């Protein structure tokens, strides 16, 4: 039928109903296609930029409105992998619009870095490239690192600043706690520069423990260390009675005789002089030896008084064996070679007095419930197994048990651990800071089989530890090397020779740092030889007194012999000289009475030094810095002059401001200070 050249019959025209369907479907398609550009237009950042411009317009900030660069704004730093678009909404970070306070228009607080230098997310976390409120701040399907709560913010600093950092107290505290609580005995915490944090809690060796204490005390102590001493560093392993009994049996069994166990210290003088006089004398000796600089004792009100550098002594009488205590006081290093306790030169009478004083600090309740069956061989064997499993040897030296290796998870990159690798306890929020802090707060809540013990830490300490751990990110390890600021204090300096032997015996480095090694409780002595005068130093070593009236911690009196004092003084004045610093450079003629009079004017009038220092006890009330009443005896003129010119060049951590003194002003002040001398006969 189709072989003619005429067109075949056409299909019928669409009906009205078909046209209506077509129209509706087309409309639906058009509307759904319009959703995408609409969503694009009604974006969060456009909304915030509009309201910012509205506020600026209301405040008549015409130039601000005109110069405003709209659109998505970003900080892009290729070498750090930073693409942060936070500024698209947070448009007022520099504070150009004064008084715009609510977020997202708040001004960023002043920080030591340029805001563009590192972007935002390196410190604040969150999702930098995101341009919506939800994606940028919170955990979403494809992003598991929400904004960091403000209390952990210092962890950002810690990624580059590996040592103590001014202005980041929480980070510093956290890092110190990692060392002082002994966390790093079990966990490895390595920093991007390769430095591995070292423990600083100085746990005692247990190799001669039977000489020191009883099995009952060990039992009670390991069951709950804090019931013996509230401030004890040793964590609670939540051992049951049987386990604690077995461990104590093993610890007694493995104990060997210490090298000095045969030495008998006479107790004659204590026996001869009991009574009120003796106890007063002993208390005076305890005070004069400044034991409380390091050791705390609970007072009647329940407050700890004293330092936390050594163990708390509130119930020490319930712990130690009297013979051991006397030997310990005579020479601590004989029992514990790595102890931080100095070797006081005490005579037998002093030892007897002090040990009697300490042994009286008893608490009969502490051992009341420790009734142990005699140790059997089974019990000892089981105790050894428990000691090995619990990891006691990670901290303590124990005969026959090697320190465990890779005992606990490596925390080097814990600050960027993927949440997929984290096992959360039921009911907790799924984010890293909460996980870390919950883990520190109560490790066993994550499962009964976990080994980590419970530490006694306050909320702020847990926050500090969490901050320090959050700073251990893996991207910090890939930052350009020039950004990493190492912590220093990594040298192994030890003084040599005869003086070195004395200084080691006195454990000077427990408190003082010298050439990058040592504690931070007392002044750095690296350049002490340039600073002080011989007569003062000799006098000080003979009878130390504090230079700072407000300090409780003081240098103890070691009862050094004149020979030892001479050796130490010679060594300090020779070895600890500041480089390029000649004590003779100061022109003696410049320090005349005229200059001193001008210096006094500068001291009191121009610079108001008396607000921090005391030059005259009668009038001055400055308790911030050291008293200067006898500074003319103490310091060398050259050091004083240089110090006044630029204090932080000599001691980087000093809080003394640099007043940018002119040369003659510094000279006049030095002249004045050198006139401040102690009255004859006293060094005070």
């Amino acid at each position: 039928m189709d072989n003619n050249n005429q067109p075949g019959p056409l299909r019928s025209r669409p009906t009205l109903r078909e046209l209506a369907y077509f129209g509706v479907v087309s409309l639906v398609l058009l509307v759904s296609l319009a959703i995408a550009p609409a969503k694009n237009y009604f974006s969060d950042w456009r909304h915030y930029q509009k309201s910012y411009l509205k506020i600026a317009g209301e405040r008549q900030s015409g130039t601000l409105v005109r110069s405003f660069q709209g659109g998505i704004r970003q900080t892009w730093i290729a070498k750090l992998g930073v693409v942060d678009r936070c500024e698209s909404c947070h448009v007022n970070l520099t504070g150009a619009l004064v008084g715009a306070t609510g977020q997202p228009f708040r001004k960023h607080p002043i920080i030591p870095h340029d805001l563009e230098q590192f972007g935002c997310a390196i410190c604040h976390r969150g999702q930098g490239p995101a341009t919506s409120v939800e994606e940028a701040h919170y955990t979403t399907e494809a992003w598991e690192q929400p904004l960091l709560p403000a209390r952990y913010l210092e962890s950002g600093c810690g990624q580059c600043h590996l040592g103590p950092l001014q202005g980041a107290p929480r980070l510093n505290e956290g890092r110190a706690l990692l060392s002082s609580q002994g966390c790093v005995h079990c966990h490895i915490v390595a920093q991007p520069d390769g430095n591995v944090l070292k423990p600083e809690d100085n746990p005692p060796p247990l190799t001669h423990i039977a000489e020191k204490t009883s099995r009952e005390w060990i039992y009670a102590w390991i069951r709950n260390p804090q019931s013996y001493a509230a401030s004890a560093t040793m964590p609670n392993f939540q051992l049951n009675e049987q386990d604690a009994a077995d461990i104590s049996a093993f610890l007694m069994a493995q104990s060997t005789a210490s090298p000095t166990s045969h030495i008998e210290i006479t107790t004659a003088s204590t026996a001869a002089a009991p009574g009120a006089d003796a106890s007063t004398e002993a208390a005076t000796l305890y005070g004069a030896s400044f034991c409380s600089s390091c050791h705390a004792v609970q007072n009647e009100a329940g407050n700890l008084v004293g330092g936390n550098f050594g163990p708390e002594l509130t119930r020490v009488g319930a712990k130690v064996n009297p013979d051991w205590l006397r030997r310990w006081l005579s020479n601590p290093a004989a029992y514990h070679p790595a102890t931080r306790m100095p070797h006081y030169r005490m005579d037998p009478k002093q030892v007897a007095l002090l040990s009697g004083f300490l042994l009286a600090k008893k608490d009969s309740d502490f051992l009341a419930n420790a009734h142990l069956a005699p140790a059997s061989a089974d019990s000892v064997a089981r105790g050894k197994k428990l000691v090995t499993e619990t990891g006691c040897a990670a901290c303590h030296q124990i005969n026959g048990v090697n320190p465990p290796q890779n005992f606990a998870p490596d925390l080097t990159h814990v600050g960027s651990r993927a949440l997929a690798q984290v096992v959360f306890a039921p009911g907790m929020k799924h984010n890293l800071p909460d996980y870390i802090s919950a883990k520190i707060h109560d490790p066993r809540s994550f499962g009964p089989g976990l080994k980590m013990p419970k530490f006694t830490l306050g909320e702020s300490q847990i926050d500090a530890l969490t901050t320090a751990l959050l700073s251990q990110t893996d991207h910090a390890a890939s930052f350009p090397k020039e950004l990493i600021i190492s912590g220093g204090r990594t040298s192994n300096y030890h003084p040599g020779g005869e003086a070195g032997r004395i200084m080691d015996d006195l454990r000077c480095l427990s408190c003082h740092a010298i050439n990058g090694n040592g504690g931070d409780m007392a002044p750095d002595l690296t350049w002490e030889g340039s600073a002080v005068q011989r007569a003062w130093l000799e006098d000080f070593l003979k009878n130390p007194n504090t230079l700072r009236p407000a300090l409780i911690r003081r240098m103890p009196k070691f009862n050094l012999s004149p020979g030892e004092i001479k050796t130490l003084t010679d060594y300090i004045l020779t070895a600890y000289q500041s480089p390029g610093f000649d004590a003779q450079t100061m022109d003696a003629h410049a320090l005349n009475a005229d200059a001193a009079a001008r210096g006094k004017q500068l001291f009191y009038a121009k610079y108001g030094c008396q607000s921090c220092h005391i030059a005259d006890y009668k009038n001055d009330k400055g308790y911030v810095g050291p008293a200067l009443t006898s500074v003319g005896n103490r310091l060398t003129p050259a050091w004083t002059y240089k110090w006044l010119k630029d204090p932080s060049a000599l001691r980087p951590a000093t809080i003394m401001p640099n007043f940018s003194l002119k040369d003659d002003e510094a000279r006049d002040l030095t002249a004045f200070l050198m006139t401040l001398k102690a009255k004859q006969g006293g060094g005070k």
Partner: protein
Amino acid sequence: MSMATTIKSEFERLRNTEVWRTIFRSGSGASNLHRAQAVQQNIFLHLFSVKVRSRALEFSPTWYLGALTLSTFFILIATGILLMFYYHPSVPQAYADMKDLQFVVASGVFLRNLHRWSAHAMVFLVFAHMFKVFYRGAYRPPRQFNWVVGVFLLLLTLLLSYTGYLLPWDQLAFWAVTVGSNIAKAVPFMGKQIRFLMLGGNEVNANALLRFYVLHCVILPLAAILMVGVHFWRIRKDGGLYVPEKKKL
């Protein structure tokens, strides 16, 4: 009605202009010859039959599944080309580009989702199309070769879908391709070699990403376009769409 007539006469006038005739080679005229020439002599239309039975244009014989598949393919080409403007097939950049599509490219999420959903739809429609052809018996001679072409097109569709899966470079992509390439490794005797060839190495990494990108954006689409051409040409040559007789009640 007069409006429709006007448009019609205007269109006839346009078809008679020299420009139109230069481009499309056929002039106006409503005779069957003119209409046949209009189709045959046009490079774009010559793939199609000159004549179709009006029954073939109804919904029931085909459910329009082939046409719908072709539409999704066009959407995929169009959105795919736009996506290529924003995408670097490199390990450090690929995932960041996904994020940028989401965060800064205007309607970027729409673009990506359109590509993704069209891909899913195409796989679904290809299967539906083949079932329809199979159960209707439309694969029988003389259309048996076009069925074979169709099977190749199914494989190309699946490969396009699979290669595109790796490109976002997220965990899902990575593990999907790890699993997929390990399946290829299970081939007897030469499994390892096949896997090596697929990934350009022994694990899913930068080389695999580049390979999958080239396959996804160049080789497989070109092959698919070629096969689609053959498929359509054969429809015409095999006597048009298969339309079963309407059963008389």
